[in-house]
């Protein structure tokens, strides 16, 4: 602007300047390379060798541990795919529940009502508890003999107690109900924020045209919630894949490994059986499955969101 502003030693300043951004980046990049980038390569390296903490040599075995996962006669293959199936089952059942219930709660709450702040706090509150606290709580709620659920069944409804925790299949109920209770407030809050951003004039215009509740939801609310639904859906699926603490604490993966999750089995193979190479191979298979699934989901959901609006 002003020609009178002195510009001292411009070339030298520029020469020095060019290093500055890299100096800012240095500490982060060092840690990033050591703890994020390097472990990925190292993990793959481990999965190609027979790793034993006590042994002197770690011979190269190539893809043997990956092949084992596709050889139905190995216990690794049976337990790993069983755990993958369990994780998929949990995801398929819990995600629609988590998204729909969160939207339902948000719809109940976003218009003014007495005690709205209180209700919002109540539904959000469980989410701040740590997973082990939540797990112990729900194990107790569904305790086979004297948990609250069975107490209500026997003492109030006159029914027989149900051994939820030790019955195959039924053991999923405490896990899923507990997860719902624990994480619903998170998704609800996202929906509440999105609902608050929808212009009220759209509804007023629709009312003038005589629209009732359902068409207003179907043609205004739902399409405008598209991006949030995509976000909620994808983050919830990713969180469900990570299933670990709930089943570890509530059911210990039982009965009979029917609720053992993929991460739980991978950590068992690594840290209890000391099979680090085998567990690394599983981690890569699992990671790959997650990546493919996330990618497909983004594509499908993004297309749907575009088509809807």
């Amino acid at each position, binding site marked *: 602007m002003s020609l009178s*502003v002195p510009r001292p030693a411009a070339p030298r300043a520029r020469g020095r300047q060019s290093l500055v951004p890299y100096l800012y980046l240095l500490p982060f990049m060092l*840690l990033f390379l050591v703890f994020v980038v390097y*472990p990925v390569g190292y993990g793959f390296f481990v999965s190609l060798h027979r790793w034993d903490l006590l042994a002197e040599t770690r011979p190269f075995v190539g893809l043997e541990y990956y092949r084992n996962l596709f050889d139905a006669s190995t216990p690794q293959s049976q337990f790993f795919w069983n755990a993958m199936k369990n994780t998929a089952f949990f995801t398929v059942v819990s995600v629609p529940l988590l998204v729909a219930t969160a939207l339902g709660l948000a719809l109940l709450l976003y218009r*003014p009502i007495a*005690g709205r702040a209180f209700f919002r706090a109540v539904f959000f509150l469980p989410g*701040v508890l*740590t997973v082990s606290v939540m797990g112990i709580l729900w194990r107790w709620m569904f305790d086979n003999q004297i948990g*609250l659920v069975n107490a209500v069944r026997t003492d109030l409804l006159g029914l027989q107690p149900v051994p939820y925790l030790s019955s195959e299949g039924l053991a999923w109920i405490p896990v899923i109900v507990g997860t719902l209770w624990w994480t619903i407030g998170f998704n609800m809050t996202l929906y509440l924020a999105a609902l*608050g951003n929808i212009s009220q004039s759209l509804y007023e215009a629709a009312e003038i045209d005589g629209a009732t509740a359902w068409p207003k939801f179907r043609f205004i609310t739902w399409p405008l919630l598209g991006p949030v639904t995509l976000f909620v859906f994808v983050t919830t699926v990713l969180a469900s894949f*990570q299933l670990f603490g709930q089943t570890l604490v509530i059911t210990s993966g039982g009965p009979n490994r029917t609720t053992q999750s993929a991460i739980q089995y991978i950590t068992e193979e690594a840290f209890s059986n000391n099979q680090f190479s085998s567990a690394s191979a599983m981690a890569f298979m699992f990671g790959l499955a997650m990546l493919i699934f996330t990618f497909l989901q983004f594509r499908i959901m993004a297309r749907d969101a575009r088509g809807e609006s």
Partner: protein
Amino acid sequence: MAAPSRPADLNAPVTATAYRPRRTPRDIPRFLLLCLLAIIFLAPMYWMITTSIKPETDVISTPTQWFPARPTLENYREVLTSPDGNILRWMWNSFFVAAAYTVLHVVLCALTAYPLARMRFPGRDAIFWFILGSMMIPGVITLIPTYLMMIRFDWINSFNALIWPGVAGAFGVFLLRQFFMALPKELEEAARLDGANSLQVLWHVILPLSVPALVTLAVFAFMSSWNNFIWPTFVVTDVDKLTLPVGVNTFSQRYVTDYGKLMASTAIASVPVLIAYLLAQRYLISGLSTTGLKE
């Protein structure tokens, strides 16, 4: 772009109708439904607290004791003085680890996001996308190699193992970069004309304007460290070094059916997060809302 466009206090009226709350009869079923849901949501908390103040015989009595007939603090006393582990110690460990992690993470992310957002230099975009790309790596892939590295560093049963591996997180860089980019250029240029160097610009101009983003990131970082469960479960086994979630879980394995003690320990473990939640409610919800809706 990522700047919260509206104060995220969800209690604030946001729509025209909110300014004139009409109580219509149509609201009554909705209110009753919400009350019912609130009771269901609070039931586990109620069951936790009442169980924790019952003597052991009353916990397992049939018919069920809906309300503690002989309240006692015995479970709390036993849990707090248990030889199997010190719950207050675990709480302090968790706090120390989470606080150290949060400070390091926020400082490092701010230092990294600053040049990526506001300087021009060769390789800038490549570096940014390289960092961002790491968000695609599922955590399970680095779990085992990082554990083997901890053995080599001799960091097993050390807080170093709980703090350092997660410090260079991509999400924080992304969040702060988006925020820094949205700040007006003029203030920075004015400071430059006054002779400020880039560090002074960061400290006196950028950071003071970025308090909402920094607080959001800090709250997220603290919560994720505080609630971390998988990693500390395996990397820390020394009973004095356990964090709260892992420590409480060791109680759960030890007192499998002693629910009075288990509920006392979960109640103690819940107190700090409930207090923190009440204090940080606004930031928590604002952070949540903005990450979901922008970008």
